[in-house]
């Protein structure tokens, strides 16, 4: 590897092993001055481990790093920041009950008087187009605004290298546009950026160079602008990604009718739902897009039956089911799958077998007069494991020990195996590797082709465009009128999702 003055960071043969998994295997990477460098890879490819090593959160087992020509081995994030490395996490490291300024202060290492800090925050946010009100409580802010806090926090330390971990997953198309402007401005001023993503088009648009990781190894260094998306995708996954097969939609009768639904959020910093109306037909997938915190959780809770709704707002087969609890809804074929897998859809300390009992006890007759039939329950769990290709020890493995993708396959399998007439899924493929995601989407499509109605709530627009028949957007708790997905252009979708023309 040649040393070059324009190098900012060199990662040389870094390895890191967790339990039995080699998360990073002799990874080498060179970041050049004032470049935006893409780090691509699937979930579990080792991207997070690598950037955590660079940011001092994880220590490598072997290998070394050179930052600006000097040996670099940060013990903790403070050291990393002092050396000029900043990082914006995918999951924000923010404190809901504190103010913007307090949150920023907490991320700084140098002493700052609060007045000069306020000035600097205002300065940076105007310089880089990162609008922020320092005295706001963070819990009340949108995902986009929260990300700006993280970015401002980094920029206050004048980083030479800025790491961005999946920054666009929480943003609307307009916000993405703004972010790219900011990043381009930074790199023009001499900051290097390590940009982690799995969205290929974005990378091609933004990044000058890139590296692909797979199974902890560097597969290829490449120039995004001259490589096609399908080439990149193949390198990431290691094989050709099959696209989902969609049979022609045969939407029939209206089965689910949401009529003017409004509800106040139960959580302190939640989003209230405002006058939502929807009709879903048998044999169609209705996709609901929107950035995080637009009211998806609240909508799902009203549909599962965990939040009670007013009379005459929720009709299933022309029957008002607003006052039915989750189990009563399941018994009439109305199934749901929440976003949060561990803790909501599944109990972490319980076995896969026991987790079957959470939703399938009645429909699969796993309990008789309240007594558990262990043989049947075990068989049902094994069935799901087999049919949905769940990689788990056995049906007695604890839910928390499965990887995100495998657990999601199991949980989706648990619902789909109960032959639902309506299924509502929040974030079906969040944090799931490409192969599993494709599997889950195909399973949903297959189910719908047999006449089931599905609502897919997702923050992944590509996913919704791929599988949904009709598309609508949830913005600040309000919903737009659903439209046929194939008739929509990307800019129209962007407009539907943008917060600017939505009622606050």
């Amino acid at each position, binding site marked *: 590897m040649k040393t070059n003055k324009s190098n900012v960071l060199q990662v040389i043969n870094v390895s890191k092993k*967790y*339990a039995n998994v080699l*998360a990073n295997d002799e990874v080498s990477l060179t970041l050049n001055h004032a470049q935006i460098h893409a780090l691509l890879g699937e979930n579990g490819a080792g991207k*997070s*481990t690598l950037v*955590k090593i660079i940011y001092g*959160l*994880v*220590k490598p087992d072997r290998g070394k790093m050179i930052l600006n020509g000097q040996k670099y081995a940060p*013990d903790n994030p403070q050291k990393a920041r002092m050396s000029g490395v900043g990082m914006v996490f995918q*999951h924000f490291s923010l404190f809901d009950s504190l103010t913007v300024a307090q949150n920023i202060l907490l991320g700084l290492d140098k002493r700052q008087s609060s007045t000069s800090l306020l000035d600097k925050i205002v300065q940076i946010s105007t310089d880089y187009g990162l609008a922020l009100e320092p005295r706001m409580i963070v819990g009340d802010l949108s995902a986009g605004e929260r990300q700006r806090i993280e970015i401002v926090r980094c920029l206050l330390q004048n980083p030479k290298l800025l790491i961005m971990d999946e920054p666009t997953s929480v943003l609307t198309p307009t916000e993405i546009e703004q972010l790219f402007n900011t990043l381009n401005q930074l790199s023009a001023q001499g900051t290097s950026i390590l940009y982690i993503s799995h969205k290929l088009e974005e990378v091609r648009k933004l990044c000058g160079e890139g590296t692909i990781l797979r199974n902890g190894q560097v597969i290829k260094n490449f120039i995004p602008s001259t490589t096609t998306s399908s080439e990149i995708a193949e390198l990431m996954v290691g094989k050709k990604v099959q696209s989902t097969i969609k049979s022609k939609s045969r939407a029939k009768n209206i089965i689910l009718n949401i009529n003017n639904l409004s509800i106040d959020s139960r959580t302190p910093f939640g989003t209230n739902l405002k006058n939502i109306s929807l009709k879903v037909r048998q044999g169609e997938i209705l996709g609901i897009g929107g950035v995080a915190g637009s009211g998806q959780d609240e909508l799902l809770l009203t549909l*599962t*039956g*965990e939040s009670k709704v007013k009379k005459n707002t929720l009709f299933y087969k022309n029957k008002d089911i607003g006052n039915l*609890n*989750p*189990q*009563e809804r*399941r018994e009439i074929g109305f199934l*749901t799958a*929440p976003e*949060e897998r*561990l*803790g*909501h*859809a*599944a*109990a*972490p*300390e*319980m076995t896969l077998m*026991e987790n079957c*009992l*959470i*939703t399938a*006890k009645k429909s699969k007759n796993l*309990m008789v007069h*309240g*007594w*558990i039939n262990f043989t049947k329950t075990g068989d049902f769990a094994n069935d799901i494991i087999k049919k949905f290709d769940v990689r788990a*020890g056995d049906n*007695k*493995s*604890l839910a*928390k*020990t499965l990887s995100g993708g495998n657990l999601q396959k199991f949980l989706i399998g648990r619902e789909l195996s109960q032959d639902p007439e309506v299924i509502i899924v929040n974030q079906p493929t969040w944090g799931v590797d490409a192969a599993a995601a494709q599997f889950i989407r195909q399973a949903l499509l297959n189910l719908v082709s047999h006449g089931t109605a599905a609502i897919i709530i997702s923050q992944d627009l590509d996913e919704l465009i791929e599988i949904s028949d009709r598309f609508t957007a949830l913005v600040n708790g309000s919903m737009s009128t659903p439209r046929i997905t194939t008739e929509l252009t990307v800019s129209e979708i962007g407009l539907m999702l943008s917060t600017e023309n939505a009622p606050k």
Partner: protein
Amino acid sequence: MIKLTPRDHQSKLLTAITPIIAVIFTMICGGVLFWILGKNPFEAIKLIFWDPLMSETFSDYARPQILIKASPLILIALGLSIGFRANIWNIGAEGQFIMGALISACIGLAFYPLENRFIFPLMILGGMVGGAFWAIIPAILKSRFNTNEILVSLMLVYIAEQALASASIGILRNPEGSGFPGSRNLNHYPSTSNPELIEGSGIHWGVIFSFLAIWFFYYLLKNHKFGFQIKLFGDAPRAASFAGLKTEYIILLCFSISGALAGVAGMFELTGPAGAITIDFNVGYGFTAIIVAFLGRLNPVGIFFAGLLMALTYVGGEISQFMLGIPAAAIQVFQGMLLFFLLSIDLIVKFRLSFTKQNFISRKD
């Protein structure tokens, strides 16, 4: 540094063996404590753990005493463990124990001097209702207003103690007791007495009741949806509500079961070993039972053995007090230490430990 990895499967062996390790650690530290107190540690440990069972001098007295002391501990701990599994913390069992005894005393004395074989079962029922009633107060406050159940159930212990004091010098005072505080001795009337059923065994109705309760709840928790619901609620309350469970229902259920069991334990104690309502009727079973519940791993069978062990330390403590002059409080310290070790050792049940040079490891990835 030590690195933690969550275990894939629950290890039954570790779950069973760790309490024994904790007991051994406690013996060692307890020995040091006795040594500091100027006593021979080996003799003290032997007096506490061995002599009550095996020595000819003490076992005739001690063996029945173990059952007598174990029975309330087991009953109360069994009830508490159900709540603890669901992350519902009833720590006011002492108060429920008192209220169970008070209500059953009221029933028994109300019929005095009538002799009828239905009086005793009615008192059992009264004990359960009394305990459950006292336990339902924090349960309702928790489910209606989300009031902290730990603090409320505990405050109710102090209130129950005052009620006990008031009753023993007031309404329940023995009219023939020449003005001394305390009620009539219920052991003196066949209808309200809970006698030793087999001479010299210590077995009274409460002991039989506690053994039956262990068997019943073992079976129920293992095979019935009740056990599943409790576990689910404790592990993931949101998943429980996703499953269609009502939070209020679980809270009320856990509190009333534990209250009823604590109350009935109070009833058997009143009619048997204690005999009468007095100001110092309660001796802390309700708190020691917390240790028993954890020592038994919140599992009915475990609680059975833990209850016997804890009773052994009580009886052995008495013997060591008599023989070596070890203060009674030392036994309480001993029991407290046991809980420390037990809770700490849980780490190796939940995680696999490995030693690395790693400084710290992040949670996700």
